[in-house]
């Protein structure tokens, strides 16, 4: 009987810890760098056979800092969609695509 009570106590404690983790995870946000692709207008000049001026280089991607929820980070982490570079997280996803239709970057 005592063993059963101890077991129930441990289970209840772990259950409470699990719920606390879920609540904290649901509330937590992460700062993630997102490399926005260059504008379509700028990209037009870089297409094979497109207009190209001497000395013209590919425009650098715009880097945007996003605050995303932990749930979003779990989604982005699938397919290795987020990488750690230095001490920052960088997402590789094309976020313009709807969820479920994103291409796997790997």
């Amino acid at each position, binding site marked *: 009987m005592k063993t059963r009570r101890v*077991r129930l106590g*441990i*289970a209840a404690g*772990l*259950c409470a*810890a*699990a*719920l*606390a*983790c*879920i*609540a*904290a*995870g*649901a509330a*937590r946000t*992460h700062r993630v760098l997102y490399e926005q692709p260059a504008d379509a207008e700028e990209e037009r000049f870089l297409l094979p056979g497109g207009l190209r001026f001497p000395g013209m280089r590919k425009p650098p991607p715009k880097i945007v800092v996003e605050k995303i929820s*932990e*749930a*979003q*980070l*779990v*989604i982005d*982490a*699938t*397919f*290795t969609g*987020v*990488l*750690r570079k230095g001490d920052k*997280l960088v997402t590789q996803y094309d976020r313009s695509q*709807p*969820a*479920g*239709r994103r291409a*796997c970057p790997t």
Partner: protein
Amino acid sequence: MQKYKTLVQTIAFLLLHSSRGLEAKWLCVPVLSCHSCALSYFACPIGVFAHFAGHHVFPLLAFGTVLLAGVLVGRLLCGWVCPLGFLQDLLYRIKTRKFALPAWTGWVKYPVLVLTVFALPFAFGEETVFSFCRYCPAAGAQVSAPAVISAAFAEDAAVSGWSLLKIGILAAVVVAAVFFRRGFCNVLCPIGALLAPLNFVSFWAVKPPTSRCISCGKCNRACATAVEPSARILAGESPSRAADCVVCHQCQVVCPMKDAPGEAAKN
């Protein structure tokens, strides 16, 4: 019971892998099913843990979900929902000579969990070649095999060595499943290693089928993971309070004493 279990496993398999765009990949379901599969609804906790270890971020949401599932039902999901467990159960039905794994092999899955899911991705990043995802047989079945098959029909598609390695590991798991009862679950499964300690405290437990065990050994032979439930039943303990038990309830079903006078009412 066996029929119900197969039915539940079939339904679970179809429900877990029937997404056509709709997904809830923020939610981890503690079974070995690759979230990279286009048909998956949910995330794999092992993949999430390995990626988050590489990110140096503690996965509160995934950890909480797995812990909650483990405390509520122990390894019930391994026995009744996991698609790789289902595949192994089906393959073990092939009539051939069967073998038992040495007991020490049950300890291998713990270093596999610690090293390939947490420590090495933490040290070398989420894309490390030491990550469990690189060798996962579920990923081999759900992602690599379809990719290799589609590459065979495409003109310029290339097949990576990793895909072939995963398919090779999947083939080894498939062959082993014919001879060893749930060999992968017992020896290598990191989700099994995560949930195993929670079997000791989970709310869901298999009741001892009888208080008058005659040590006939039927439960030991029926056990899906060779945890020898008879010793626990004899001691009046729940047979599912063993780390490797997948809570299939088969020991309860086959017990010849469960319907003995005085026992039927208890059960």
